[in-house]
Structure formats: structure tokens, C-alpha cells
């Protein structure tokens, strides 16, 4: 174990040394006048997207007579990007989820992207809504994703109309020993606010109030309103001391595999599960997560993948050209979809592939009621306390106590 840590320490040391090296000057690392645009564009993305984006980036480079480098950042992309940007060693373009926007903006790491009215109109309205923060558009969306209810149609031919139906069917199948679990929703010992949000929202729960402009309002935390407490009560009823549909023993590591191994007939998951589900070799269907019999609709979180222009990049004009004028092009979006089939954010591209890939279309339909995941920095304060409250009620704890404790921690964190 000593040897392993030695490497980590050495790496950390090098990192600190890098910080130290840059700490020697008080001048901002990159003042535009001194900075030479060197005809080179650097794009950072995660390892799954890097090979997909490479050909497009290279085509762009050829078109504009510049070299383009696509670099994969294996993990912790957001923090890596922000830290590197601050040091002046960041990329010109970053690719990532839209809920990073708030944090990237407060660190001055990204610039707004000026899209024309025509360009904006070409996107799915939810995609534009997701990348809008403080009234400004901060990125060019290219793919949207949300969770849906995936069911094994060999066991359940028709989609359940309500969550009660789903539970009833699941219980019958369990009693008949056809499955071991009623529902597979990744939750885990640490809780999972994202995957369970359709259930929480269907039961009437919410996280934030809204501002006059319709954005989530961090000064109005609503996790302890009577509606949200009632929603946690319903999650408790679905939990380990109730129906046993939400369990801490089913998490991200075994949720999708359990569905594939027919341990459960229902799975709540997103487009990323499709590779595994397709290989399972049984018929399946994708529908929206239903609501409760007496209650509202399930509103899954919408996540949007977008391209961002780094504020401290060395080739900002090229980066803007790439983000605002290149990836917003329908043909590029279509080619991107073909390389990485995630529901396209550009309506024209989404329409064009509708007939080719019914799954993508089904996920989009399942996300029709969805709400863009709040991109405000305060969202960071939600995950931990809210997940803890959900774990507590799923294990049979008191909903009101859990909600009040979560609200207290969240408010303290936001106001700190």
C-alpha cells in the first residue's frame, strides 16, 4: 500500500509544484494582447466522447487551416477544467454536462456563446433552457438525456399507467418467482437523488422554488415544504420497510445488470444503459416513468451535454467559431449522432434519426415532462443532504425529521 500511495503523493506534489510555479506571479496568466493565437485549438472531453469528437474536430481544423487537439480527461472533468483554466493551461473548448455551468461561471471559466435567433430556434426548447444561466446562453447543446422506465416486455407486455400499477405488477411477478425485485432503480447505500427524482417529483416533491424568470431560486429551498415531506412519505412507503421497491442494496453498480439478468422487470435508467440492455437478448420497451394514481406527473431531470468556450483559452475566436457556428450545424449534429447515438439537441437532427433509432425518440418522449437539472451552484449543496434524507426514509425513518435536517444543512451550505 505504501508503494501505491507514493505515486499519488508524487503526483499531488507535482500538481502543487505546478501551482507554486504559477503562484510566483500576480499578473493574470493570459492577457489578450500578449497572447498569441497560435492557430491551434484544444478541446477537452471525457474518454467516451473523445474518439467520437476527434474526426469532427479534425474536419473543422482542415476547414479552417488550424490544428485541433482532442484530449481526454479521464475523471473529475469539471474540477480539472476549472483548475487548469485558472492556471492558464486549460483548453479552448470544454465538453460537459449543463449542470456544471453555474460553477464554471462563478469561477469565470467560460464565456457566453452568442447564438442567433435562428440558431436558437433550431434546438429543442428544453436544451436551450438548460444551457441558459442568468439569462445568458453559455454553451451549444448537442445531446440530451433523461431517465425513463425500461421494462422487460416478455414479463410485462403493457406499460404501467401509474406507480401503483407498477408496484402491483412487480409484486405479482415476484410472488410467481419470475423476478427477485419489484423495481430496479439505482439508489445504493448513499442514495441517488437523480434516479429517484421522477418518483419524488411525481409525489409532489421539489428542491427549489422559482424566480420571477422561471429559474430555480437558491434562496427558496423547498425540500421541507409539506408537499416535499409528503413526497418523502411516499418514498418511505416504497422503501425497505414498505413495498421494498426502492432499496439501498440496488445501486449504480448492480441496477442495470440486475435488469439484464431478469432479476427485475422494471428499470429506471437512461440512454447509457442501452448498450447493456440490447445485449440482454429479450424484448424491452422504453416509456416515461408513470406518476402516482393521485398526483402529478413524474418529472425526470434533463441533462444536456454541451460545448463551452473557455474564458481563458488561447484561441477564443476559433473556439467560438467551433461552438457557435460549427457544432450547431445540422449535418455536424447528425454525424455526431451517428457516431454516438444520444438524443440530439438539434431538432432537425433529432427528426432525421427518428425512424432509424426508435429508442432515442422514446427517451425524448419520456423526458417530455422533464425539467432541466438546475445549473445553479447551489445545486451542489442539494445532492448530499437530499440523498441522506432519501436513504433515511427508504430505511423507514421519519420523513419530516429527514426533510427538516436536509433543509437545514442545504440552507446553511448555500448561505455560507
Amino acid at each position, binding site marked *: *500500500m*505504501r508503494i501505491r500511495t507514493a505515486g499519488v503523493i508524487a503526483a499531488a*506534489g507535482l500538481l*502543487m*509544484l505546478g501551482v*507554486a*510555479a*504559477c*503562484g*510566483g*506571479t*500576480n499578473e*493574470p*496568466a*493570459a492577457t*489578450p*494582447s500578449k*497572447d498569441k*493565437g*497560435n*492557430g491551434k485549438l484544444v478541446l477537452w472531453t471525457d474518454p467516451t466522447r473523445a474518439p467520437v469528437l476527434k474526426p469532427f474536430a479534425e474536419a473543422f481544423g482542415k476547414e*479552417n487551416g*488550424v490544428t485541433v487537439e482532442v484530449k481526454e480527461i479521464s475523471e473529475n472533468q469539471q474540477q480539472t477544467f*476549472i483548475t487548469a483554466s485558472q492556471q492558464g493551461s486549460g483548453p479552448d473548448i470544454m465538453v460537459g454536462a449543463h449542470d456544471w455551468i453555474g460553477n464554471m461561471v*462563478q*469561477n*469565470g471559466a467560460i464565456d*457566453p*456563446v*452568442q447564438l442567433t435567433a435562428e440558431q436558437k430556434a433550431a434546438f429543442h426548447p428544453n436544451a436551450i433552457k438548460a444551457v441558459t444561466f*442568468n439569462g*445568458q446562453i453559455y454553451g451549444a447543446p448537442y445531446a440530451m438525456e433523461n431517465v425513463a422506465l425500461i421494462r422487460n416486455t416478455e414479463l410485462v407486455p403493457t406499460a404501467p399507467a401509474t406507480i401503483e400499477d407498477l408496484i402491483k405488477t412487480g409484486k405479482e411477478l415476484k410472488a410467481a418467482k419470475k423476478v427477485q425485485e419489484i423495481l430496479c432503480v439505482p439508489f445504493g*447505500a448513499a442514495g441517488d437523488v437523480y434516479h429517484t427524482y421522477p418518483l419524488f417529483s411525481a409525489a409532489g416533491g421539489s428542491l427549489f422554488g422559482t424566480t420571477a424568470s422561471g429559474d430555480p431560486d437558491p434562496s427558496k429551498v423547498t425540500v421541507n415544504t409539506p408537499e416535499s415531506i409528503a413526497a418523502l412519505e411516499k418514498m418511505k412507503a416504497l422503501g425497505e420497510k414498505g413495498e421494498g421497491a426502492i*432499496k*439501498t*442494496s*440496488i445501486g449504480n453498480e*448492480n441496477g442495470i445488470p440486475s435488469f439484464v439478468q431478469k432479476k427485475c422487470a422494471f428499470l429506471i435508467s437512461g440512454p447509457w444503459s442501452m448498450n447493456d440492455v440490447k445485449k440482454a437478448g429479450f424484448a424491452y420497451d422504453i416509456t416515461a416513468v408513470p406518476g402516482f394514481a393521485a398526483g402529478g406527473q413524474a418529472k425526470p431531470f434533463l441533462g444536456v451535454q454541451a460545448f463551452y468556450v473557455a474564458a481563458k483559452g488561447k*484561441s*477564443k*475566436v*476559433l*473556439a*467560438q*467559431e*467551433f*461552438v*457557435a*457556428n460549427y457544432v450547431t450545424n445540422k449535418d455536424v449534429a447528425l454525424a455526431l449522432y451517428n457516431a454516438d447515438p444520444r438524443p440530439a439537441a438539434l431538432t432537425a437532427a433529432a427528426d432525421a434519426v427518428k425512424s432509424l433509432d426508435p429508442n432515442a425518440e422514446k427517451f425524448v418522449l419520456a423526458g417530455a415532462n422533464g425539467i432541466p437539472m438546475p445549473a445553479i*451552484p447551489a445545486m451542489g*449543496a442539494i*445532492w*448530499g*443532504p437530499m440523498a441522506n434524507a432519501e436513504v433515511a426514509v427508504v*430505511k423507514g*425513518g421519519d420523513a419530516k425529521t*429527514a426533510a427538516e*435536517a436536509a433543509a437545514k*444543512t442545504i440552507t446553511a*451550505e448555500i448561505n455560507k
Partner: protein
Amino acid sequence: MTTEVTGAGSASSPHPGSSGQAPEQRSRGGRRGDAEQVRRTREVSTGFIVSRIAVLGIVAALLIYALPPLIQTEAWTALGVVGVVTALVAYLYLTPRHIPAKYLVPGTIFLIAFAIVPIVLTFITAFTNFGDGHRGTKDEAIRAIETSSVTQVPGSPEYYLTIAESDGKMVFLLVDPATKAVQAGTADGLSPVAGADVSLTGKVLSAAGYTVIPTAQAAERDAEIAAFSVPTAGGAVKATGLSRAFEGKADKSYDAACDCVTSPSGGRWVADEVEGYFVDAEGKHLDQGWKVDVGFANFAKALTDPTISGHFLNVLIWNFVFALSAVATTFALGMIVALALHSPRVRGTKFYRIMLILPYAMPGFAMLLIWRDMFNTDFGLISKLFGVHDWLGTPTTARLGLIVINLWMGFPYMFLVITGALQAVPRELTDAARIDGASAWAGFRRVTLPLVLVALTPLLISSFGFNFNNFNNIKLVTNGGPYAIDNSTVGATDLLISYTYRVAGFDSGVADFGFAAAISVFIFAIVATVSTVAFWRSRAQEEVYS
């Protein structure tokens, strides 16, 4: 590096530092020369010279590699440090003098670079509010605020852009998509252009009096284009990439007179140098902040904030329990196994040793995740063997589980070092003890164990230090949990380090490095104190037994 002259090596030329002094010749097996002579004269071999040239070459290469980025970012202090260190290293290995320094300096440089600098930086950071929202300088925050507030002037055209030159100065040729009218934008403003040749996509192909810059060349002048703006009545025309431009207006601007950010629509945010934010009359701040010194605020928060200090003691106690049990259990099991395999009667020791080292050789992260899944309530192996129980969801079993997992991960290391130490214990001592009538246990207790401990105490102390900060085990297996219903800040299995990680906001992606650094300083103080006391006591022990 050898300093002895071997037959062939002696023919090589002396190194520059010892020019004038002939390397001492000595035949193989011959008498050692005058001791004084040996001390002063360095002897050289080809390998020595080659390795020295290689090392100095690498040092020089590092200097050359570091120069351009440091000059580019104007990091003069860092440049000075790199230059001085390189010069020092070069001098040291090119002179025959300062022989002890030759051995000490590399280690010292690494010690400073990888231990002392990070510690000093952590201390410095602990006195700031460095973290998300407060990473840069005030100037950077102002620039970010102004840039983020730029919006398109309502009703203004969304121009097609062509970059051109006139009299050596940059010009934006702007095409209105609706009317196809062409205008030239310079630093003085807009002026109409007549008779320009415009393509279907809105690019200006040619215009009298202007030289169109091809895209590839324009791309090379990125920074110039980014800085270029054409003043207009409503704001300024700026480029959006190389092919479009828009007329934008900044909604917020910084006013140095009042040290505040103002907006034409009436907003006014005054700089608060204590918080590092621009704050309005209602106390709401703009998103972008800057780094300020906060004095002892982070330390005070750790000690006084009830959500933090209230749990500090409990976490600290469990932290000690975990670290001590981790060392004790791995040491005990490692010792038992090592003793068993040390016995001359055991056959196939090589095979057993390989098997025992396996847990150590496997990737730790993967092992931890497998262990976590083995403890799964419904599907895990542990539940299948011992009955369904919420193993990692109950404080007692979660803590025991972590110690068991750590035992499995850690005992091969102890086994290895104890095996080494045992082989250094002379057999005659244990034999003598047996002849004197000592039982096996007494022999072990009074002879073997003390001798082994003399060699191993430093390792036990470092093992304690490591386990005191054993972040991986906690993070990957329980993530600090289980948590009480009303407390999501600290869980039953949190160590100080995993707890720091959470309260500093790394889990949620909104990091507060300043506060994390302050807690790290506390942890550093605790581990340093424990280690110092332990080393001090082990020195006393060494004096007794050796």
C-alpha cells in the same frame, strides 16, 4: 555510481572537475593507496562519466523545457527558482568538492519539492477563502462579470463576418443577412462599403480597398480578433468566431471610483474585500468572486461551527480506533503468518508467500469495490454466509467491516516486512533461549519480538500515519456512512480526511480549498504529534535493546 577505477575504466579521461589530478591508478587486488590520497582524489569510470553526463543532461533539459512557459506567463519568481536550482545542481556535480552535498542535494530537492512546498502551500491556503467562486484575482472576477453581461443589442442585425485588412489595419467586413448590405467596421466605427462581392453564405469575397484575410491566416490572429471591437451607437460589434459578428452591450461595468459594479438598469454591487464578492444593498452577491485573505476564519469555523465542531471529537476517536486497529490487526496477522512460514519445518514456503502477497498485488480500488459488493445487504456474499443484515448500514458492523477489509488489504505488507526482519534475527539467540529453558512463547515474547520491533517500529508508525488518512477505504466502501437521519455532514465511519473531503464540498463539486486546508493543518498536527512521540519512544526502546 562507482568511484573505483577498474582496469578498462582507468584509461578514460578524467572528468573536468579533477583536471590536473591524475586518477589514482590501482591494480586489481592491490593494496589500498594512502587513505588521505583516496579521500581527496576522485576516481572515475566510464559508467560514472556517462551517468553524470546523463543526469546533468536531464537537468539541463528540464530547465530548457520549463523556460518557455515560465517566460510566457511571466512567472519570474518561479523562473528564478528553477534557474538557481539548475545552476546549483550543475555546479555541484561538476566540482570535485562538496562530496557530502552530492549525496544530500537530490534528496533535499525532492523533499522540498514534494513534501515541504505542499505543506507550506496548504498552510498558506488555510488562511484564504480559495475555492469555487473565489479562485482568481479581483481583476479576473471583474473581467468575468463584464464579459458575462454582454448581450446582443435588441433588434440589431446578426452579421456575417469576413475579416479583412486595409492599410495594414484589421477591418471587420459585416454583411447584414436581411439586406445583404456590406459595412466596414474599424476601431473608429461603421462605414458602408459599395460594390463588394458577397457569396451566398454571406462571406465577402472581395471589396475595393480591402484585402480579405483567408480563414487560415485569420485563425492565426485569434487574439487580435478577440480583442477587436467596432464601436457603435448602441454598444460595440464583436466577433462570434470567424464567420459571425453581433452588436453587443455590456450590462455591467466596473467603476473604480466607487469600487463597485454598476448596471444601467440600476443595479449596484459594492466590492466587499472581506467576503471577496460584489454585494448589493440587499446583501446578494454576484456569482463571480475573488480570493481574499480571511485570517483565522477557516480555523475558527472548524472549531466553532456546531455542525462541524460538534462531530469533530467523535470522528477523531473513531479515527484513532481505526488507525490503531488497522496497525494492530495487520501486524498481528502478518506476524502469525510470517512466523508460521519462518519455521524450517514448513514446506512450500515460496508457494504460500506468493499466495499471501496476492491481496497486496491486486489493484486496491477494485478490491475495495468488490469488498463493498460482498457486504451488500441482499446480494452480497457476506449476507449469504451469515444471514441478511444491513452490514454497511449499521454503524457497528460497518466499522468492523472496514477493519476486516483493511486487514485483508494490509496484512501482506506486514507479512513481507516481518519476514524480512525475522530473517535478520540470529537463530543462535532463539536457540540459546530454548536451551535456557524458555518456552516458545517466552522466546518469542522476550527475544524475537523485541528484536523485530526495533526494526519495524518506524514502519508501524508510518503505517499508523497512512491508515490515519486511509481515504480510499472509507470513500470507496462506505463513503463515511451510515449517516444519522438528521446529519448528512458526518457519518459513523468517517475519518477526518473523508470528513474534510465532504465538508470542503469536494463531493458536491463545489470545492472550498481554504477550509479543507485548515482541517488538513489540524490533521497534520495530530499525525505529526503522534509520530514524534512514537519515534521518541522507539528511540528509547532501541537504546534498551541494542
